[in-house]
C-alpha cells in the first residue's frame, strides 16, 4: 500500500503521533520541564510536516463523501469483532480512516493550531507534565475526529477529546475554572448522548454484507449509512422523509450544534474561553468548534439529506441569529476574551449560513470559513494572551494607546482584526463572500438580513481596537514590552496564512471543490428521492 511509513499509514501516524509524544512526556522526570515542552513541540511539528506531505500528495479530483473510492490515504481493518451474539447479530467495528476534500482543510487546521498551541503553552506555570500529556491526548482526539470514517471510531475520538479538555480548563484555567469546565463537559456530554442514540439507531437500520463472511450484518460505516439502499425496509430510519429520520436529524443536529455552538446552545463557550488558558482557548476556538460543523457536513447532511433539504431554511435562520446575535453580544462585552468568544459565535453563523445554502459556493464558503475562522480566531486569542501575560487583565477599558508602546504587536493585531472584519485581501473575506453568495441564491432575504452582521462586526472590532490600542497610554502600562520571539513564532505563521489565503484562496478551495460538489449533488439527488430506494 502506498503512503505508509514503517508499514503504518500516514493517517494513523498523524493521528497517533501526539500519543507517542504523550507517552514520552509521561516518562520524562518531573523536574525536566524543558524536555516536556520540546517533546510536545517535536510531536506537533512532525504532525505539521506530515500534514504538509499529505497536502502535497492529495489528489483534488477525487470526490469523497459517499464514494469509498473517492477517499485518499484510506486505512481499513477490523477493529472490534464480536461474532454471534444471539439476538444482537455479528458486531463489527472497523478501524476506518480516510480523508477527502472536506477533511483535508480540517487536518491542516488541526496540525497548524496544535503546533501554535504548544508555543503558546510555553509558560504554563504548574504541573507541566500533566498539561502537556493531556494536551497531546487532546491533539490525538481532534485529529482522529477529522480522519475517522467509521461512526463508532468517530464517536470514540469525539469523546476522547472531551476528557483532556475538561482537565485542561478545570486545572490550568482562571478563577472560575471549575464551573466553566463542568459546564463545558456536561453540555458536550449531553450532545454526545444524542449523537450516540442516533448512531445506534443507524447501526440497527443499516444492513450490509460482510465482505469476510458473506453474511448480512449491521455496520457503523458512515459511507454505508449514506446509501439509502442499505437500509432495512422495516428499520426505524428507512425511507426518505420519514418521521424518525427527521427526529434523528434534529437530535444529531443538537448534538453537533452544542459544539459549534449554535444559539441557544452557546453559553458554555464564553465561560470556557474566559477561564481557559490562552493555548486552550486557541485550540477551543481554532479547532473544537469546527468539529460541530464538520459533523454536519460529514454525518448529518449526507446521511439525512432529506431532512437537510426540509430544514435548510431553519438552519439558515439559525445562522442569521448566530451572526447578528453574536455580534451584538460581542459589542456589549468588556472582557477581551469574552468579546472574541462572542465574535466566534457570530463568525460560525456564517459557516452555518453558507452550508445551509446547499450549493457549490455556499458550502465551499462555509468550509473555507471554518478554516479561516480557525486561523483568525487563534490569532485573536493569542493576541489577548500576549497582553494578559503582561498586564494580567483582559478588561478592554483598562487599556489604551498600546499602539505606541507595542508597535509590532499592534501591526499583527491590526491584520487579525481586519481579517475578522472581513477586509478583502485577508482570508475571511473570501469565505464570507462565498457563503453570502451561496446563501443569497437560496434564501435571499436571510442573506440580506444577515449582512447587517458585516456592519456590526466592523463596529465592535474597531471600537475594541480604539479602546485598547489607540489614544493615550495610561501611566501604568509604560512598562509593557513588545511581542517577543516566541510569540512571533506563534503569530507570524498564522498571519502569513491569513494573507496568503486572502489573495490566493484557490490554494485551499481547489482541493475542496470536487468533494463539496459531490456533497451538494448527493444531497439534492438522494434527498429528493431521485436515487431509487429498494
Amino acid at each position, binding site marked *: 500500500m502506498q503512503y505508509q511509513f514503517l508499514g503504518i499509514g500516514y493517517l494513523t501516524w498523524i493521528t497517533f503521533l501526539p500519543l507517542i509524544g504523550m507517552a514520552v512526556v509521561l516518562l520524562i522526570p518531573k523536574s525536566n520541564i524543558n524536555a516536556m515542552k520540546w517533546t510536545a513541540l517535536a510531536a506537533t511539528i512532525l504532525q505539521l510536516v506530515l500534514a504538509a506531505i499529505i497536502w502535497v500528495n492529495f489528489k483534488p479530483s477525487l470526490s469523497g463523501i459517499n464514494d469509498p473510492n473517492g477517499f485518499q490515504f484510506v486505512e481499513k481493518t477490523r477493529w472490534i469483532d464480536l461474532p454471534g451474539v444471539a439476538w444482537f447479530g455479528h458486531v463489527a467495528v472497523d478501524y476506518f480512516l480516510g480523508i477527502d476534500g472536506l477533511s483535508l482543510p480540517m487536518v491542516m487546521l488541526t496540525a497548524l493550531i496544535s503546533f501554535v498551541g504548544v508555543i503558546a503553552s510555553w509558560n504554563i506555570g504548574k504541573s507541566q507534565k500533566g498539561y502537556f500529556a493531556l494536551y497531546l491526548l487532546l491533539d490525538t482526539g481532534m485529529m482522529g475526529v477529522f480522519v475517522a470514517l467509521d461512526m463508532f471510531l468517530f464517536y470514540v475520538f469525539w469523546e476522547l477529546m472531551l476528557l483532556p479538555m475538561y482537565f485542561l480548563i478545570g486545572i490550568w484555567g482562571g478563577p472560575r475554572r471549575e464551573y466553566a469546565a463542568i*459546564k463545558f463537559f*456536561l*453540555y458536550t456530554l449531553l450532545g454526545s448522548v444524542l449523537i450516540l442514540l442516533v448512531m445506534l439507531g443507524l447501526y440497527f437500520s443499516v444492513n450490509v454484507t460482510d465482505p469476510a463472511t458473506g453474511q448480512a450484518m449491521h455496520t457503523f460505516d458512515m459511507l454505508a449509512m449514506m446509501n439509502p439502499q442499505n437500509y432495512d425496509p422495516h428499520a426505524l430510519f428507512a425511507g426518505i422523509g420519514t418521521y424518525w429520520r427527521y427526529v434523528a436529524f434534529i437530535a444529531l443536529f443538537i448534538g453537533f450544534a452544542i459544539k459549534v455552538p449554535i*444559539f*441557544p446552545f*452557546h*453559553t*458554555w463557550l464564553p465561560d470556557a474561553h474566559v477561564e481557559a488558558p490562552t493555548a486552550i482557548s486557541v485550540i477551543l476556538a481554532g479547532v473544537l468548534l469546527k468539529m460541530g460543523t464538520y459533523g454536519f457536513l460529514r454525518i448529518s447532511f449526507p446521511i439525512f439529506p432529506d431532512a437537510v433539504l426540509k430544514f435548510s431554511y431553519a438552519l439558515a435562520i439559525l445562522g442569521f441569529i448566530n451572526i447578528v*446575535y453574536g455580534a*451584538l*453580544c460581542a*459589542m*456589549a*462585552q468588556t472582557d477581551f476574551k469574552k468579546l472574541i468568544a462572542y465574535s466566534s459565535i457570530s463568525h460560525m453563523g456564517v459557516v452555518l449560513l453558507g452550508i445551509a445554502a446547499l*450549493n*457549490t*459556493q455556499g458550502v*465551499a464558503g462555509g468550509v473555507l470559513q471554518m478554516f479561516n475562522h480557525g486561523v483568525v480566531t487563534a490569532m485573536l486569542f493569542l493576541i489577548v494572551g500576549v497582553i494578559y501575560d503582561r498586564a494580567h487583565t483582559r478588561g478592554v477599558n483598562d487599556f489604551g*494607546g498600546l*499602539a*505606541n508602546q507595542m508597535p509590532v504587536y499592534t*501591526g499583527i493585531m491590526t491584520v487579525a482584526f*481586519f481579517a475578522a472584519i472581513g*477586509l*478583502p*485581501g485577508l482570508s475571511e*473575506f473570501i469565505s464570507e*463572500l462565498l457563503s*453570502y*453568495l451561496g446563501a*443569497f*441564491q437560496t434564501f*435571499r432575504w436571510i*442573506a*440580506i438580513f444577515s*449582512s*447587517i452582521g*458585516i*456592519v*456590526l462586526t*466592523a*463596529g465592535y472590532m*474597531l*471600537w475594541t481596537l*480604539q479602546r485598547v*490600542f*489607540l*489614544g*493615550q497610554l495610561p501611566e501604568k502600562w509604560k512598562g509593557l514590552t513588545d511581542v517577543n520571539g516566541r510569540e512571533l513564532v506563534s503569530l507570524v505563521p498564522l498571519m502569513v496564512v491569513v494573507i496568503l489565503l486572502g489573495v490566493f*484562496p*484557490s490554494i485551499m*478551495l*481547489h482541493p475542496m*471543490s*470536487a468533494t*463539496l*460538489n459531490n456533497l*451538494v*449533488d448527493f444531497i*439534492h439527488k438522494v434527498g429528493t428521492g431521485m436515487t431509487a430506494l429498494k
Partner: protein
Amino acid sequence: MASTESLLLNLALAVLFLPLAGFALLIFFGKKIPRQDLVETGILFTALAISIYIMVQKVFFVSAPTIDLTFKWLDLGAVAGQQGFSIDLGIAIDNIAAIMLVVVTLISSLVHTFSLAYMEGDVRYTRYYAYLGLFSFSMLGIVLSNNLLMIYVFWELVGISSYLLIGHWYEKKSASDASKKAFIVNRVGDVGFFIGIMIVFTSLHTFLLRDVFGGIAAQHLTGPLLTAAGILIFCGAVGKSAQFPLHVWLPDAMEGPTPVSALIHAATMVAAGVYLVARIFPMLTAEALTVIAYIGAITAFIAATIAVTQNDIKKVLAYSTISQLGYMIMALGVDAYSAGFFHLVTHAAFKAGLFLASGSVIYAMHHEQDMRNMGGLRKKMPITYWAFVIFSLSISGIPFTSGFLSKDSILAGALAYGLLTGNYLIPIIGYLVVFLTAAYMFRLIIMTFHGEPRDHHKYEHAKESPKVMTVPLIVLASLSIFVFYSFNPFNPEKGWFLQAVQQPASVVPAAQSYGFDQPVNDVQVTSPQQQPNAAELSVEAQKTETTRYEEAMEAVHYPGLALSLTLAVLGILAAFVVYDWKKIDAEKLKQRVKPVYTFLYNKWYFDELYDATAVAGTLLLSKSLAWFDGHVIDGVVNGAATLTRLWSTLSGKFDHYIVDGLVNFSAWFTGFLGKATRRVQTGKVQTYIVFALLGVIVIFYVFRQF
C-alpha cells in the same frame, strides 16, 4: 491583441503595483532605508509618468474603446448537471480609466511632494508615507478593475487606508473617533453595494462588467430587481462619496493630516463613488437614475447650506466637497454622464488645490484652523493667496476656469433633464447651489486673507510656505484653467476631454430607461432583442441624428450659462458685501435668522439624530441582548443544572429517608417486634397456656368461615 495594447496593460499593472511595492518596502524595511519619503514620492512620480503615457496612447492613438485583460481567479467546478461556479477578474483601460489614472497619480504625487514639508518631523512619518502608498494602490485598483468584485475589494482597501490616515494622530480621541466613524458609516453603504453585487452575480453568474451589461441587454436581469441592483450598488457610492444620508463621516475625516484630506477626502477616494456610478452607468434604469439625481441634488444643497456657516477652514472645504460630489452624482442621475465625469476631474484639481492651500495656511498659522483667528494673510502669503483665488473662481464657475466648463455642462444637463421630464426641482437646486458655492468660497477667502489680522501673534509668525508646498499649488492652479480641457473657454463640447469621454449607451430595456437618446423625430422604441452588446453600443451612441437630449441641451445652453454666471457673481458679491465691505453686519444677520443659522451651524443635526437613533439603538440592543444572554439563556442552562441538583438532593433525601428509611424501619420494626414479643417469654406455664388458648380461639374463629 495588438502589441501597443498589451504594452499598455503591462504598464497599467506596473502603475498599479508600484505603490504597493512602496508600501511593503516602507512597512517592513522603513527604518533601514534612508529618506523613505523620497522613495515613495519617486515611485509616485514614476507612476505618474507612465500614466500620462498610457492616457495619451489610449485617448489619442488606440481605437478600441476598451483594452481588457481577464483571467480566471477562482473555479469551484460544477455540481453534476448544473452551471459551474467560477470567478473571472481582470483589468480594463478605457478612456475614463486612463484619465483617472493620471488624475490619481498626479494628485497623489503632488500630495507626496507637499507632505515632505508639511509632515516633516511627524512621529509616524514613515508610516504616513507607507499608508499613502497603500492608498494609491487601492485607488488605482478601483480605477483599473473591469469587474464588480475587484471594485468592491479595492473599495474596502481604500476604506482601510482612509481609516489609517484619518486616525494618523490616533492619540487624539477625536481622530480615532473620526476614523472609526468613517469606516463604519462607509460599511453601511458597502452592505448595500454588497447586496447589489449579489443580485447581479446571482442573476448573471459573472462579476465582469462587460458580461453584466451583456446579460442585462439580453434581459437576464430586468424589472424591479434591475432597478434594485442599480440603487444598491449606488449605496456604496453614497457611503464613499459622502452623499446624503451617509455624508456625516466626511467632515469628521478632516481630523487627518491636511494633505490626506486633499488626496483622499477631496480629490480621489470620495470621487470613487462617482466613478463607480459612471462604471455601472449602462445598467441604471430610469428609476435608479432618478433616485441618484435626487440624492445628488439634496446632498449638494444640504452641504452648501452648512458650508456657509462653518468657521473651521477645513470644515468649509469638507462641506464644499460634499456639495460638489452631490453635483457630480446629480449629473450622472440626470443622464449628463460626461459632464459628471468632467466635473470629477476638474474638481479633483481645484479641490486638492484648495485643501493643499488651506494646508499651507494652517502650516503658516501653526495648526490654527479657525478662520475667526485668521485674516490679512494676503500680504504674507501671496502665492497661496492667488492659488486660492484661482481655485475659488474655478469652483464658483467663473469663465476661463475649468470649473466653469464642467459645472456649466452639469447645469445645462440638469436643465435639459428638467425640460424633458418636468422635474424642475433638480435644476432649481442646482442653480441655488451655484450662488451658495460662490458665497461660501469667497467668505472663506475674505475671512482668511483679507481685512485685518485677528490673531496678531500668529500673524506675526506667518510666512509663505516653502517651495515643496507652493509648487504643487502652482501646478494645480494652472490645471484649473480652461485650456487644459478645451481650447474654447465657453463651450467644452469640442474639446479633447468631452470628445474622449463619451456617454455609454444604456443596456436596460427601453421601457425602463429615460429614452433621452432616442432621435427627436423617431420616438419608436427599438425592441430590446435588437440591441447589440454594450461594446458595440458605445460606438453606436455616436449617432449622427440629433437626440432628444441633444436638442434640449441646445435649447438651454446659453440661457443656462447666463443664469449660472449671474448667480455666481451675485454669490461673490454677497460675500464681499457682508465680510469685506461690511455693508451688512454678519452678526446682526445671524441674529435675525437665528433659528435657521443655528440649524445650519449644527449641520442640520444629522450627527445628533444618528447618535440618538442608530448608535444609541444599537448599543441599547447590544446591552439588552447581552443581559438576555447572561440571564435568560444562560439562566436556563444554570437553571437546568440547579433543577437537576435540586432533584438529586430530593432523591437523595428520598433515598435516605424513604428507601433507606424503609429498610431501617423494617429492621427497627423487627427489633421492636422482637422486643415486644420477648416480654411474652416469661417462663410461666400459665401465661403460655393463656396464649395457646388465645391462639386456638383465633384459629377456630378463622377456620369457621370455610
